[in-house]
């Protein structure tokens, strides 16, 4: 029973990690909190939904397409709402992304309706038995894809030229610029990648929860933020591990706490507040991945 919950927790955690990685990537490279990241996730979920429903394409095509769509959205957000900002007002990017959030969420309610929508069961959910536990093919898929994406990203940052650019920019925009890095371009790519990951997370969420709504943006945004704080701002590996920790903690807390108290929602907030007060640098410190 516990093992089952652990699997669930890891699966949930993996989606949290995917969201958090996007946040922490943008924070690490740009130094800003991308408030609208959760909404991008939500758009990704709906993109995935509609692609599958309308075109009947299988998941392994629909997912990358959804990721592409959200990646483009991320790039647009950078071009329209971030790049034109003046550099002197340090609150400007945050407030601007809050603006984007408001726009995206309200548009989503208009287009997709204010209620939950059922996400199609694209994968026949087969249960595999391992000993006395059941593990679901959906679980495996989600965990697998999430891990694949995360590890891929980590190597991308650590080993590729663009990744090197990202690392340079995360240290200092100014100096990276002097060294010949095209900062604007790196920022653009970062937004694109982070948003694509959010899109993937959105589709995963649709798959695992079987239903999505225009409001999941805020919920997962907040979870993602907590994980980002937990893992350390800018720390990609920390975000990965932090997500798993939060997922596990949330699932196990339902098991442990009495059911009358509906504390799950604020559980993550409580953690966030505790981190902010006692260890704002997170469990693993705020270092961007090194080469």
């Amino acid at each position: 029973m516990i093992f089952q919950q652990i699997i669930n927790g890891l699966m949930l955690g993996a989606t949290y990690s995917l969201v958090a990685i996007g946040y922490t990537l943008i924070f690490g490279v740009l130094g800003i909190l991308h408030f609208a990241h959760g909404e991008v996730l939500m758009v990704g979920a709906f993109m995935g939904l509609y692609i599958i429903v309308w075109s009947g394409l299988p998941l392994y095509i629909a997912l990358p397409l959804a990721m592409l769509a959200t990646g483009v959205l991320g790039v647009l957000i950078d071009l329209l709402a971030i790049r034109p900002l003046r550099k002197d007002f340090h609150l400007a990017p945050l407030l601007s992304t809050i603006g984007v959030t408001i726009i995206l969420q309200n548009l989503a309610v208009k287009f997709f309706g204010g209620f939950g929508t059922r996400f199609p069961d694209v994968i026949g959910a087969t249960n595999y038995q391992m000993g006395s536990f059941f593990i679901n093919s959906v679980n495996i898929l989600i965990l697998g894809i999430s891990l694949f994406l995360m590890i891929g990203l980590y190597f991308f940052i650590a080993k590729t030229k663009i990744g090197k650019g990202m690392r340079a920019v995360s240290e200092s925009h100014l100096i990276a610029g002097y060294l010949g890095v095209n900062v604007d371009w790196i920022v653009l790519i970062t937004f694109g990648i982070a948003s694509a990951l959010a899109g993937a997370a959105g589709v995963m969420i649709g798959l695992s929860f079987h239903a999505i709504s225009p409001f999941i943006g805020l919920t997962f945004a907040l979870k993602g933020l907590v994980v980002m704080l937990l893992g350390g701002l800018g720390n990609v590996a920390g975000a990965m591990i932090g997500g798993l920790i939060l997922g596990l903690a949330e699932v196990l807390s339902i098991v442990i706490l009495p059911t009358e108290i509906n504390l799950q929602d604020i559980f993550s907030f409580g953690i966030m507040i505790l981190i902010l007060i006692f260890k704002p640098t997170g469990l693993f410190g705020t270092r961007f991945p090194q080469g």
Partner: protein
Amino acid sequence: MDYLISVITIAGIHIIMALSFYLPFMTGQISLGQAGFMSIGAYAASVCSVKFGLPYVPAVLIGGVCAAVVGFILGLPALRIKGIYLLLLTLGFGEIVRVVFINIDYIGAAAGFPGIPYQEHTLLYAYGVVLILIVLLNRLRKSRMGRAFQAVGSDENAAEVIGVNITAVKLIAFSSGAFIAGIGGGIFAHYQEYIEPLMFDVMHAVEFIVFTIFGGIQIFWGPIFGAFVLTLVPEFLRVIQGWRMELYGALLIIMMIVRPQGIVSLDSVQSIENAIRRMFGNSTAAVLSSGQPEGK
């Protein structure tokens, strides 16, 4: 006509809320929790009215005090936390308050708290509070504490070295902001006659920030202007009614790109004050700028 009055009343409440955000903002503390403080004030005031039969003014005041107390408690850890971290802390706070209230049956839980006695003179009370706040904030502007507030907001470490007790200043600003938000909540509750936790969610907290950022961050007239205009204009442009939130969002983005300091700037207010001085003579202007003529 009734419709106009109701819109103006809500605008008044929004002004109070924008100012509740502005006070801690002056000291560099950006709070997404003002909606949370508003709800504490709203619920506390309503409990006083409905369950204990207290008259309007004491009930609203108690609401404010409750919010202030919570504000003080939250303000303590907030002292060491800056920028986005504080934003997240206050965001978390607001959400926790909302979820807590959803789970308390005594005040109606998710179904809400009905039956709050309607205050027909809400317009007067709301703008009465606004007027008081204007006078107080104007006095603050040209005073020792006002300068201290601004200094802390500008560069708190330098301010501390100069001799400003930044801990005290930040706490006072934060708790006062919470108090004002609580008052706003109490007034709101007695106008709506019914409140529920969803009325005080993150999006509303964001709205108050939008009012201030749009209106102008350099002086307290900014939030007043922003709250008033952004409440009224959508009501009169029916065509954009349904798109109000999207427009707020676009407005935020555009303001950040084009005019991050907001519409109302310090210069414009000072020019207006100078103009009034020229028209009506020194004494009127003196009254306006809290008893001290701006000598050169």
